[in-house]
């Protein structure tokens, strides 16, 4: 891969050093577990959390004479992902063997794609806020490969145990170009990639279960200068850790260079406990993987119709959805970005906003509902208030039947007790009083009871707020605030 610098150095990202500013250059290799019923080359289940060695076939255990057979669903998932990354789909790709010995690698080689991957160049767009704006991160390639099993070292004093449940599970390795220039961008990239994968349904994105992990390549240089020597941080399994690892590693390399030293190309590990990276192996100790085409598998070939069929059923992706929500519902780009962070939240919003006020709906969905869900640690899917109920509350506001304040109370009731908002309002007499006669009566009483205040308001018209408050209090919040305002102003001669 030829390295091309696609970015203009941004001073906001510069890292101050003793010898001046530095800039980091980051590229990521994300390993995403393909969502599929069975493994890449065998019929074994991919279910997570099974007892050790429960999901193991003769192929997964590399029994003599066993042969791999490609799982077509995994191929479809890789193509879907490629389409979602606006990438070139390669109609002919090859599987290679990557040879190395390890107890959790039963074949003694991993089946991967080396020279001819299934997906070529694509891109991911990041919104880095007002200052930096939109950033495009190039995708170099995506290929399919087998996951390894798991070695367990704490079960026996001098032996290790091996669990092959993961052995042979399909992974997509998604390789970015070295286009990332800050830890924030790296975090945003992983988050965005995960969102896209989840939209596509091609990877569940659960980093804590290991469904998504990143190898991070970090180098530093003087802003806009030649690319430096990189180090690779292996197997980072959280967005936060990725940020920490990058910050630490960039600083480490700057310190070395400023001390007159040289960065040695090596593989490093991030320790979440210390927040530091440490050396795993240097380039000299790197394996010679002896890649060669797997003779047990034919080249993977499909036609344009196969791709078209998958493209046809591709869901609307976050970028398009965000643009559409802005255009269709008149909400801000920021609100739209919050809503499209997951397909369910966007869908929820649309169910609420359809036929209603888009902005008001966005406020209620984002601030009231999502805020409350986050506080309770709940997911949209398990929200006690569904889209119809929230829509019902908003309808009552829009019809002038309840005030915003009452609406908050109503939301609480629906949240904890459930039920139809309109019926609750009816039954509990929460309806806003818009009847001018009734409001006039209260206003008259308040004016009569507070001559002192009436005197003051003539000089200080903003004091009308105090009267509004009194009327609302007297009406137990049910008076229509607009009507109250209007009548008060008339009566007080303002």
């Amino acid at each position: 891969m030829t390295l091309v610098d696609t970015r203009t150095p941004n001073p906001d990202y510069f890292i101050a050093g003793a010898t001046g500013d530095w800039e980091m250059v980051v590229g990521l290799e994300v390993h995403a577990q393909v969502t599929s019923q069975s493994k890449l080359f065998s019929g074994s289940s991919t279910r997570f959390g099974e007892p050790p060695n429960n999901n193991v076939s003769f192929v997964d255990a590399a029994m003599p004479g066993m042969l791999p057979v490609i799982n077509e669903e995994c191929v479809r998932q890789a193509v879907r992902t490629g389409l979602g990354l606006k990438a070139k789909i390669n109609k002919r790709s090859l599987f290679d063997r990557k040879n190395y010995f390890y107890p959790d690698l039963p074949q003694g080689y991993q089946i991967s794609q080396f020279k001819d991957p299934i997906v070529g160049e694509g891109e991911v767009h990041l919104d880095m806020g007002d200052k930096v704006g939109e950033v495009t991160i190039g995708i170099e390639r995506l290929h399919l490969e087998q996951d390894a099993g798991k070695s367990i070292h704490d079960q026996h004093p001098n032996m290790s145990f091996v669990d092959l449940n993961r052995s042979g599970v399909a992974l997509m390795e998604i390789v970015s170009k070295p286009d990332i220039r800050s830890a924030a961008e790296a975090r945003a990239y992983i988050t965005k990639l995960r969102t896209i994968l989840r939209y596509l349904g091609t990877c569940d994105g659960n980093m804590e279960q290991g469904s998504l992990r990143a190898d991070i390549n970090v180098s530093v240089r003087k802003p806009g200068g030649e690319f430096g020597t990189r180090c690779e941080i292996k197997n980072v399994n959280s967005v936060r850790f990725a940020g920490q690892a990058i910050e630490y590693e960039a600083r480490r390399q700057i310190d070395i260079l400023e001390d007159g030293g040289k960065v040695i190309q090596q593989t490093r590990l991030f320790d979440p406990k210390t927040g530091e990276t440490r050396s795993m192996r240097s380039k000299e100790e790197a394996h010679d993987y002896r890649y060669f085409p797997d003779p047990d598998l034919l080249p993977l070939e499909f036609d344009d119709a196969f791709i078209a069929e998958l493209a046809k059923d591709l869901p609307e992706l976050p970028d398009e959805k965000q643009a559409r929500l802005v255009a269709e519902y008149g909400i801000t780009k920021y609100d739209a970005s919050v809503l499209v962070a997951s397909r369910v939240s966007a869908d929820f919003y649309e169910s609420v906003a359809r036929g209603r006020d888009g902005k008001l709906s966005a406020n209620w969905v984002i601030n009231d509902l999502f805020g409350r869900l986050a506080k309770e640690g709940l997911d949209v899917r398990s929200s006690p208030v569904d889209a119809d109920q929230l829509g019902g509350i908003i309808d009552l506001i829009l019809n002038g039947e309840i005030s915003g304040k009452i609406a908050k109370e109503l939301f609480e009731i629906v949240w904890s007790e459930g039920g139809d908002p309109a019926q609750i309002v009816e039954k509990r007499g929460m309806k806003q009083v818009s009847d001018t006669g009734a409001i006039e009566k209260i206003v008259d009483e308040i004016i009569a009871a507070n001559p002192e205040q009436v005197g003051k308001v003539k000089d200080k018209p903003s004091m009308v707020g105090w009267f509004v408050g009194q009327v609302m209090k007297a009406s137990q919040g049910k008076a229509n605030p607009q009507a109250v305002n209007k009548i008060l102003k008339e009566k007080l001669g303002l």
Partner: protein
Amino acid sequence: MTDLTRLSLAATRQGLKNKDFTSVEVTDAYLGAIEEANSELNAFISVEAEQARKMASASDARLARGEGGSLEGVPLGIKDLFATIGTHTQAGSHILDGFLPEYESTVTANLWADGAVMLGKLNMDEFAMGSSNETSYFGPVVNPWRGRDSSTNLVPGGSSGGSASAVSAWLCAGATATDTGGSIRQPAAFTGTVGIKPTYGRCSRWGIVAFASSLDQAGPITRTVEDSAIMLTSMAGFDKKDSTSVDMAVPDFAAAVARGVKGLNIGIPREYRLEGMPEEIETLWQQGIEWMREEGAIITDISLPHTKYALPAYYIVAPAEASSNLARYDGVKYGLRVPGETIDEMYELTRAAGFGDEVKRRVMIGTYVLSAGYYDAYYVRAQKVRTLIKQDFEKVFADGVDAILTPATPSAAFRIGDREMAADPVKMYLNDIFTVTVNMAGLPGIAVPAGKDSAGLPLALQLIGKPFDEETLFAAGRIIEKAAGDEFSPEKWW
């Protein structure tokens, strides 16, 4: 009563059908013959007498009901490379000590489905690497043939030496074998038996311990051409568990045996006339050409210009694949384990003890040719040569050639422990000079006994066919068999 072991497979099948004798009787006859011969010939590694009698009884029951498959009740020997449920399957190696598969290879499953009876597992060169059956962990196999007035033990060829020896010495009605560079045809040639390597993809490789995946093919070794045709019809067929198996109907090969060669265009490749080739081989070849001409074939001189590169290219491709295929024998999951202080030490000790010299040699060659910096010079170039060899054949077939006639081996069987061969592995590799091209091109090839050398040892001719045109090979093979006469039975000395 006639000696049931002296019948051809076809005659055995007919006799069983006619109820002239029972499968149990034939099976017992063979078991007796094995017991008598095996201490001398060492053809069988394991004899499954009890299971064989059980299978024979079941066949007799089916035959009694007038039912049964195409091989009903016929006792066969199975090369140790084929996985057979619960029975010895070690590929002639120490490293698979105690391994008993829980699965049945597709080829043997096909045979049992057609009613065949398994007598036991046949000796072979370790992991099918060898041309003399001297590399077996279970000791060398002895050729039932001896030179005139000689008591010197000769090799049966390899790697299917046990199969060839057992068929030649009437220890089974037919045997399965495999051929990666000549491992069916060369031992057949050395023992006066018939062996066919079908087109790559004709027989499933599933459940056959892999040597070199892109070259390995299963086929039969039998006493007659017709027997091979009958056996191959049962062994062959598409298998979705082997991605390289070809989805094509399997013809009734036996129906093609009597077809003759009238009007066929038989190619005679000038590059197979080697410098220093024994006179007897040249004479035999000329004799074969005459026989073909007499039966109405048209003889055409052809050129296969890249022939001389086939053997060196083969000795890059095959070891490369083998080095990777044999990585799974690491002491972790099954077979031999020699404990060590560390995992690396365990690997080293296990593989050092478990593999013989020839296997180690090829694993090292394979590892070397795939390593960084050498891959392009060796592996890539060898693959290019392979393409050229394939194109050589394609060209002559496109020019109207129906089959190609060549010698099968450059000599007759040699003595066990031959010093020259032992001192120089390349001398041993030269045994495959006429056969490897066929594997490199994925074509079918048959070896048929055609004459004898001055010491009275059998010599064979090889016919090479178009892809999936085994029928022409059976037809032409039958012509040689008929012309050479029925005199390829060794003098019994054991």
